[in-house]
């Protein structure tokens, strides 16, 4: 059995997609709410957004991905209003992970991306008594 390690500011976190199913939360609805006005006009409801071709920003390689994720990562997250100082910390951390395509980020990296609070405060937030937006340490899976 793997040893239990207390997460610290270097421990990577990600969004556990299963958590949304287990807690009867609709991730796609949340993703849709996160879209910018332009993308929301393109996809008026989550059901309008199926799979699309994503062009890799470095290699040009094409993969089939959820249009909501693709829009957020390659378009909405690049806009200045995606994470602002006024964005609540819980939302900002969630959005930072969405913007990273749910590739794991440590609290140090999250702090750099949200640009406020501190790495240890973010760790305290994520390790609170309730899991926020399905964000969990990668090791716990």
């Amino acid at each position, binding site marked *: 059995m793997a040893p239990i390690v207390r997460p610290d500011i270097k421990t990577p976190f990600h969004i556990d997609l299963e958590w949304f199913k287990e807690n009867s939360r609709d991730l796609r609805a949340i993703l849709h709410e996160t879209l910018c006005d332009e*993308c929301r006009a*393109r996809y008026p409801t989550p059901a309008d957004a199926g*799979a*699309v*071709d*994503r*062009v890799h*920003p*470095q*290699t*040009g*390689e*094409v*993969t089939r991905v959820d*249009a909501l994720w*693709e*829009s957020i990562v*390659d*378009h909405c997250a690049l806009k200045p209003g995606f994470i602002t100082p006024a964005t609540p910390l819980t939302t900002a951390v969630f959005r930072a992970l969405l913007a990273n395509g749910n590739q794991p980020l440590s609290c140090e990296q999250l702090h750099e991306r949200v640009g406020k609070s501190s790495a240890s405060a973010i760790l305290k937030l994520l390790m609170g008594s309730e899991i926020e937006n399905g964000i969990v340490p990668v090791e716990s899976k």
Partner: protein
Amino acid sequence: MTSADFWNEVGTTDADLEHLYGFLLERGTPATSRELTAHLIEWRVREEEKKLAELVARRAPHYQPKQSYQVGQTLLFTALGNREGEVKGIRAGDNPRLGAFKVIQVQFADEPKPREFAAEFTAPHPLNEDRARAAQSLEVTPEQAMAQYGERVCAALVRRLSADKEFVRVGDEWFLKGLLPEIHAGYLNLAEAAIEQAGDAVRTADLLKILELPQTVKKTTALFALTNALANDDRFEDVGPVGEARWYLTRLEPPTARERPAVLEAAPATQAQLSNELELIAAELYDEADLNGDTVKPVPPRDEITLILTYPHRQAGTLPLTPPVRALLPNFAQPRLKINFQDATTQEKFPGYAVADGHYLAGLTQWFAARKLSPGAYVTLKRGAEPLTLIIDYQPQRERSLWVRVARGVDGHLVFSQEKRPLSHKYDEEMLIVIGDPIGIDAVAQAARQQRSLAPLLEEIFPELAKLSGAGHVHAKTLYSAVNLIRRAGPRAVMGALCENRAFTSVGGGYFVLNEAYARL
């Protein structure tokens, strides 16, 4: 492979070592780490250019998302380490956000399934810029690469060569084990006898002349082999300066040169912030204990320095080897440099050692004793006419009885008195202390070494010294000299402890008085 990956790999591969093996085999003589690095970099740059030129010669177009492609076309993918793939199919792109574009299916030779890439994709993309073609070239000459990556490659190469049994290292030179001429025990016995007969360190080239190795062996190779054999035999030690190995016998080296005398051992001290006045006084004392075991920072060469003798050095027959003293000597990287002291008056020469680890010069016991030098005496070192000679001098004066500070150990305590004593040398007024009772002082020193802090020692010694002065003033240098009778400590450590202790108050000029409020406690 990116340029950074390429340069991280140079010097670490089996192919690199194999190439350098061939290089040394063909060269037939040892090469320095830098020479091997330069050769390797040149070879790797040329090889990489050749490889890239071959790729270009294949005329496969570089994949760019903005271009349109045909089925059956071969493309070069610069973002995937210049891999080649063949277009197997084309379909329409599907992303309302990106507009119209095509998707090509590309089959790479070593992959089971084709991968898809964008085509006729006109949105901004780094591969759509023409600079993407730069990946065809390292864009660096071997000379530029040596300047830019030489140090990193050299470090990686030295690590790799050190772990390989085929390569032998002597100093900074490398050669092949299999090409070394045999230096058998007989040769080494001859070398031992030759050094003993010379009574001094002997250069490798001079030993080689005596040994008469076979004429077929190249001189540089013979020198390398002999150096390697001597360095791996405990009887011999290189005591020469950088670039000129000189061999001496370890059994002829005095114990003070082999191991730092216990009286010179100072506990690590915290470096307190001193006033400019005290900093200046401390700097002029050139005490190696202030180095705190730190690496010596080189200072510009100089020709002369005057030191004030302290009791630990007087006892050990040594002098501090601080950066300004080291600047009188040629640079050396070995643990010891064998030198000759030359008395400035008599011109008599006698052996000495500069000991790197302990930061001291050894070999002065008899010279100090013959001149009856007391702690506080001025000793001058000058650069000699020969690089390995240090001229040593003191400031003699007609012997006469003078009122001086005399130290004794009484009932485990250090006590001072003013007495008339004969002195035949000039000295620093504040530092001079004549030893009245060496055995008693040793007994106090034994106990003082157990003290963890300098503060109680200062509080005990200060009143003893203050009583000798009408105004109760004691100079920081006097305290430093007195503390060193029983406990090794650098001037900065003593002065730092003095400033931090509220029992003492500075009255300027380097003098301190005992704070009356504390004195009564």
